[in-house]
């Protein structure tokens, strides 16, 4: 009984000590979570002014305003996907830095790998042909028909004629 009372009292004391600090930590964690979410969403959206940059990196005023809109929507409870969907509904697929994996966009995603496979197989075929041609032994020529005596004498006469 005494140990139970002691245990409950200890737990109550700990809760009293810990609770105020926990609520401050929760607020800080929420802010941090929102910050990270803003960054994660902003990094996937294209700046429409500096079109090769994300709105996270871009210093354009519009990019700054878009980051603010992202933060406001996340704080209001929207998910990162919902925030992305909002920007996509305003600017179309172009606002997404990575093309969506749907329809004809699959050509963009799969194209490099297909081209790599095709190029590799063509290269392999050609290499195999070159290597195969080099390693094959040179065919031995079949001997021609035997030379008869008349031909032998003629060859010798012509050879002697050239030497003179």
């Amino acid at each position, binding site marked *: 009984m005494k140990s139970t009372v002691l245990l409950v009292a200890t737990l109550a004391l700990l809760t009293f000590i810990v609770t105020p600090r926990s609520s401050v930590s929760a607020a800080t964690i929420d802010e941090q979570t929102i910050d990270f979410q803003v960054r994660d969403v902003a990094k996937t959206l294209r700046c*429409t002014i500096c079109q090769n940059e994300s709105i996270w990196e871009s210093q354009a005023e*519009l990019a700054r305003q878009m980051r603010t*809109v992202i933060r406001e929507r996340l704080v209001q409870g929207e998910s990162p996907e919902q925030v992305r969907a909002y920007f996509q509904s305003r*600017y*179309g697929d*172009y606002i997404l830095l990575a093309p969506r994996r749907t329809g004809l966009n699959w050509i963009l995603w799969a194209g490099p790998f297909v081209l790599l496979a095709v190029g590799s197989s063509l290269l392999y075929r050609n290499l195999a042909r070159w290597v195969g041609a080099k390693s094959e032994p040179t065919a031995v020529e079949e001997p021609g028909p035997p030379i008869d005596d008349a031909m032998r004498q003629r060859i010798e006469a012509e050879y002697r004629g050239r030497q003179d």
Partner: protein
Amino acid sequence: MKSWQVILVAGLVGLVALFYRGLWGDPRAIPTVLIDTQAPTFSGPEVRSGAPIGFDQYRGKVVMVNFWASWCLECRTEHENLLALQKRFGSNPEFVMLGINYQDRPEDAQKYLQVYGTNFQHVRDIKGTISIDYGVYGVPETFVIDRQGVIRFKFVGPLVGPSYDHLTHNVLEPLLRGQPVAAS
């Protein structure tokens, strides 16, 4: 010709055709997705008077919304045409023209309107949310919204020459007659 050679040639021709198409036109242009969608509502202070203006008060009318800024050179190019449009259609109670001042300092916007004149109202887009709601990425951009609140026309760039003529004859006039926008 072997079949793989045919495929290779066809692929190369396709690529060349794609490059040909991509090399012409404005590479920075972003195709709009807002045509035939409900126009986002907006509100804000009038640039000169500070009085609150809201899109909702013009529901049921044909509304032309023009995004501009005092630092925008192309906006100055089209300014006279905008005044002419308001002069031509402004007396029609079914028509409203609104300017949206985009990423500008209030004093610069006021000075711009003082110098170049204006005959219609302009809303300040203080936080940039109106511009983002309308998918604006550069000025000038012009939208025309029909009586049902649906965006029927969007143009990026100054309304001069053929674009001005198209807006007048193929967009505003038909919509004000209760007819659909004519094809370009």
